[in-house]
């Protein structure tokens, strides 16, 4: 069953006099529970596509439907509410809030959802246990290693049980050993928690951990070397 449907999406922006169009009529379908990696050369538009799916960027044309919601039709405020409930974002540089502890960083997305303090405590506890950082709950980001920070970032992304988790080069700033730990953790998130993941990476080893490996070249998506069939833009 398709969870994410990217339909004829184009994105363009102006850089000085020049109009850049990193995505031009891109189509993509991601099923529920899939772990999709997205590779491509620098500037190919893979991060742009990820940001569009995550709802932090706006399409120039086309449609993105996630769990039946056309997010391109949502206002900025509604889109923020939608992100809170449906998207977990894992950043390359962790992006933890420095003045909050690991526990508070993980709790942050839950503050946006209607739930009791006890439920929040329970969920944060589970998320921190999932990334094996229960004993670091009271530590601030400056007191943790890069790998630990990224694990807190992953806990923050999964704690609200989002519809989709997006990861923008989650191992880009980590050493090999830590990279391995993080990729294993992402696999566990996908397999054991059944979460749908879309991961952008430059690393072919990292990409190989995904259940589907996609490559974006000149606005065309390829899967296992085969170009994905373009789809016509359906009218709503």
């Amino acid at each position, binding site marked *: 069953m398709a969870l994410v449907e990217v339909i004829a999406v184009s994105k363009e922006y102006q850089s000085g006099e020049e109009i850049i169009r990193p995505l031009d009529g891109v189509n993509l379908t991601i099923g529920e529970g899939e772990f999709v990696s997205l590779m491509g050369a620098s500037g190919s538009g893979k991060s742009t596509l990820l940001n569009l799916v995550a709802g932090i960027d706006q399409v120039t044309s086309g449609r993105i439907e996630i769990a039946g919601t056309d997010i391109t039709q949502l206002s900025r405020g509604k889109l*923020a509410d939608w*992100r809170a409930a449906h998207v977990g974002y894992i*950043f390359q540089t962790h992006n933890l809030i420095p003045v909050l502890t690991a526990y508070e960083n993980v709790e942050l997305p839950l503050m946006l959802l209607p739930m009791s303090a006890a439920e929040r405590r329970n969920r944060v506890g589970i998320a921190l246990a999932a990334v094996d950082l229960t004993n670091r709950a009271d530590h601030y980001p400056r007191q943790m290693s890069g790998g630990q920070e990224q694990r807190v970032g992953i806990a923050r992304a999964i704690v609200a049980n989002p519809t989709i988790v997006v990861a923008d080069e989650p191992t880009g700033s980590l050493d090999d050993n830590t990279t391995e730990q993080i990729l294993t953790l992402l696999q566990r998130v996908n397999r054991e928690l059944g979460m749908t993941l879309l991961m952008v990476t430059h690393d072919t080893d990292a990409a190989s951990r995904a259940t589907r490996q996609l490559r974006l070249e000149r606005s065309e998506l390829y899967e296992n070397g085969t170009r994905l069939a373009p789809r016509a833009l359906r009218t709503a």
Partner: protein
Amino acid sequence: MFRRLLPWDYGVRNLFRRPSRSALTLGGLSIVVLLVLVVVGFIRGLEASLAATGNANVMLVYAISSGSDIENSAVPGRTPALLSASVAGVRQRHGVKYVSPELYLGTRMSIADGQQEGLGLVRGVTTTAPLVRQQVQIVEGNWPGPGEVLVGRLTHSKLGFEREALAVGQSLEFDGRKWTVSGVFAAGGAAYESEVWCPLADLQTTLKRQDLSLVAVAMETLDAAADVDLFCRERIDLELKAVSEVGYYADLQKHYKPVRMLGWVVVCLVAGSGVFAGLNTMYGAVVGRIRELATLQAIGYRRRAILLTLIQEATLLSCGGALVACALGLLFINGTAIRFTMGAFMLRVDSVGIAIACTTAIVLGVVGALPPAAKAMRLPVVEAIKAI
């Protein structure tokens, strides 16, 4: 809605993120609010001094030729007796009419054999003076006898002397005569508090004058006060005029209107400079957190929630500044004596001043936070999230 706001702790802890910058900003804002407090205290003290001096039931009778300057007034010595006999409704008790003949002048005064001197105000009075000026209370010593003076509790400020120089038993010299301080009086903040009172007869003898500067009459009712005015109009031979004490000091207040206006302008200028200080700090705080603010947006926090947090941070800091300023104001500014032509008054750090200072601080916080926060919020999330 409240569930969608950022945790309160987040804003508070951000203040301690760069402690030195926060401390400097707190210091700057404290100085700004303190300056506001001083200027408001000045205006309030001046207003209070002139307002506290007037009593609606007291009429001042003085020479029509002196304009509004009682120092230049000269009325016949028989005026108090004529007033008492001719005007009905003069307040009296145990047969004593509340009519106070007074001789009032500004003169150079000195202490310690002329080593220290200043321009002071002296009022020759009789024992009826405290009956008419009912705010007057002797707080130390006794009513002056021959060769003695009663000094107000702000007289030393008006003269520029130390308080101890005019303590009971000390001597004061003016108009070629040495006077001994017999007591100190308070008058509830009225302008008399900076005057020197001495027996009228003594002063007349010293000055070789037989006339008076004015006669102050306390009336039973406001209607009766009009009779004094009528008396002055009828007795054109005496060339007198009568004004209510309230009217007299209200007229004086008009002369100080430019000073008050200037004071408010200073308040606005000082507050304006505070806004720039706040803006500078908040720009610095926000620029260093562009990526963090974008992360909060990516997580799902609305711009409004983030904006409120930034305003919370700035307002907390400015309110902290207000607290420090009010504490310093109450400890060191409140009650400080200020000299002016009419005498002296005390800076007042009262509830109105504190309310104005706190409001200024809140406005500084909000106005200082809005432009940098709005600038940060305008940046697209995808760009801001890559900011260094």
